[in-house]
């Protein structure tokens, strides 16, 4: 099937480079290095995970989605409600949420197979808005506009209890984020991942060389949804709270922005973007909390005008 040269190329790509080990170990060490900012680390890890999940469909498969918050929100509420009503064990919760998001993603993937970018944009946005409406209306289950309160988690493995300083929470989130990163790394450098990139670049040709385009898109969409749900579940478990804004358009737009800052279609883009975004956000909103939106808007406009591949190129230049 594949020539020997291509196999070598793939092997070379698959070799973990030294700087990757450095990045991963830095991530793992961050909860201990910045223990006093554990809350922040936790948040960054969760958003990074969310951004990675979006990258799978946006960066690697070329599906422009404005409604990825639908799965994030589903994860938040599913994890919260599951721990409240069924079982407070966090690991069981994560598995249940991932499974259910996978199914949800598979169902929703039927909606993104046809149509242009605009149609996909509309449909994904519509799905997240439906989620918002549902969470708002099913007041008995979700708490409506007041948010879901009183989510109390059992200790992880029955040993590590979630504490107020968020130390355990941050280690937990970072660990899962790193695990997912390794999984996604393996995924995008497999034949399946290369197939996705082929579809992104030219779906007609991909079809002509015998790739089953719809099948692959459905699978990656479901995986991406499942990971987005996972990040949502982490948020609900570590903060013990769920509010309607997890479904909002802003959240979908923010995560897209993070990805764009860090670099679309690049494994570590989501992580880098989440770190930069969250740091800028906490700095700027401490100066002007209300007008944070203005600066982020300005940033976006300038970013697109100057060409958003620049950041990635700088970084690639440094790491190469």
């Amino acid at each position, binding site marked *: 099937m594949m020539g020997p040269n291509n196999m070598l190329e793939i092997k070379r790509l698959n070799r973990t480079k030294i700087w990757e080990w450095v990045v991963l170990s830095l991530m793992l060490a961050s909860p201990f290095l910045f223990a006093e900012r554990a809350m922040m680390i936790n948040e960054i890890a969760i958003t990074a995970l969310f951004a990675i999940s979006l990258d799978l469909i946006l960066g690697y498969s070329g599906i422009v989605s404005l409604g990825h918050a639908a799965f994030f929100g589903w994860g938040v509420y599913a994890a919260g409600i599951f721990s409240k009503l069924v079982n407070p064990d966090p690991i069981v919760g994560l598995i249940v949420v991932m499974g259910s998001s996978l199914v949800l993603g598979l169902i929703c993937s039927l909606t993104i197979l*046809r149509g242009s970018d605009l149609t996909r944009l509309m449909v994904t946005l519509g799905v997240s808005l439906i989620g918002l409406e549902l969470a708002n209306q099913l007041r008995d289950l979700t708490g409506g506009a007041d948010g879901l309160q009183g989510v109390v988690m059992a200790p992880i493995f029955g040993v590590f209890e979630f504490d107020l300083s968020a130390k355990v929470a941050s280690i937990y989130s970072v660990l899962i984020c790193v695990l997912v990163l390794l999984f996604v790394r393996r995924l995008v450098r497999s034949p399946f991942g290369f197939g996705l990139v082929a579809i992104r670049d030219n779906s007609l040709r991909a079809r002509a060389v015998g790739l089953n385009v719809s099948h692959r898109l459905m699978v990656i969409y479901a995986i991406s949804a499942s990971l987005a749900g996972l990040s949502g579940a982490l948020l609900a478990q570590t903060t013990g709270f769920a509010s309607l804004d997890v479904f909002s358009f802003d959240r979908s737009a923010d995560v897209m922005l993070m990805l764009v800052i860090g670099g679309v279609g690049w494994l570590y883009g989501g992580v880098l973007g989440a770190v930069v975004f969250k740091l800028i956000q906490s700095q700027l909103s401490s100066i002007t909390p*209300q007008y944070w939106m203005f600066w982020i808007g300005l940033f*976006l406009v300038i970013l697109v005008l100057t060409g958003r591949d620049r950041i990635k190129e700088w970084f690639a230049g440094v790491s190469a």
Partner: protein
Amino acid sequence: MLTLLFDGVAYGMLLFVLSVGLSVTLGLMNFINLAHGAFAMMGGYCMVYLFSHLQVPFLICLPVVFVLIALLGAFMERVLYRRMYNKSHLDQVLFSIGLSFMSVATMDYFVGSSQQTLVLPEWLQGRHEWGQDPWTLGVGNYRLFIVLLCAVLTLILQTGLSKTRFGSQLRASVDDPTVASGLGIPVNKIFLLTFAVGSGLAGLGGALGAEILSIEPMFPLKYMIYFLIVVAVGGTSSITGPLYASMLLGVADVFGKYYIPQFGGFIVYVLMIVILLWRPQGLFTKGVKR
């Protein structure tokens, strides 16, 4: 019953004026402009300022707002949008989201987050009723005014696009900018003018809607989805498609909110997704373009 239908139609007409500009930029120029609502919001604010603060007569306000927002649109096109035409859709989405975020924060900064109210002049207040109880038709004067005005606008637009020299030049520029400019059509000027008129119409829609929709800083994000629905469902190959789509949306929204208020928004979104799955190119397009 009939009253609701009429309100729905009026609402739909309003949506049409608001989004027709978007359907032109999106459909003809293939540019995803999520900041379209920002122009509408500016129109609404201009209207409130002109009419309530400066006491300019209502009928003079409308064209003034149109011209102001069209100028703003022309300026934006010249300075910013023109560079975006050839970028990818993702870039366009990011860029226009950025613009709408900026407009939201700017209005919040200068005017405050409170909702603006517009008190209509006396001759537009009040309503008439006809008919017996189950079939009562109550027509608010203002809504009647909107329907009439929008109908006239639609006629003008339709003839403008299909019958005039400008219309054919625009269609030529869209189909193939290179060849069009080779034939001596000033493509850049045509796009500039089209964008300006589209923004101006959005501004006019915002001005007309100041009393019905609420004008507030979050307006561009709140109604963005409605504009996009109109364009996506209506298809982008004609003026009539978006017109029917906005009617449908207006009526569905008004009925939904009246009969099952708790699921009002829900119905609209589900309807949209179903329609888009069924006809991805839009409900009212003939054949498949592009």
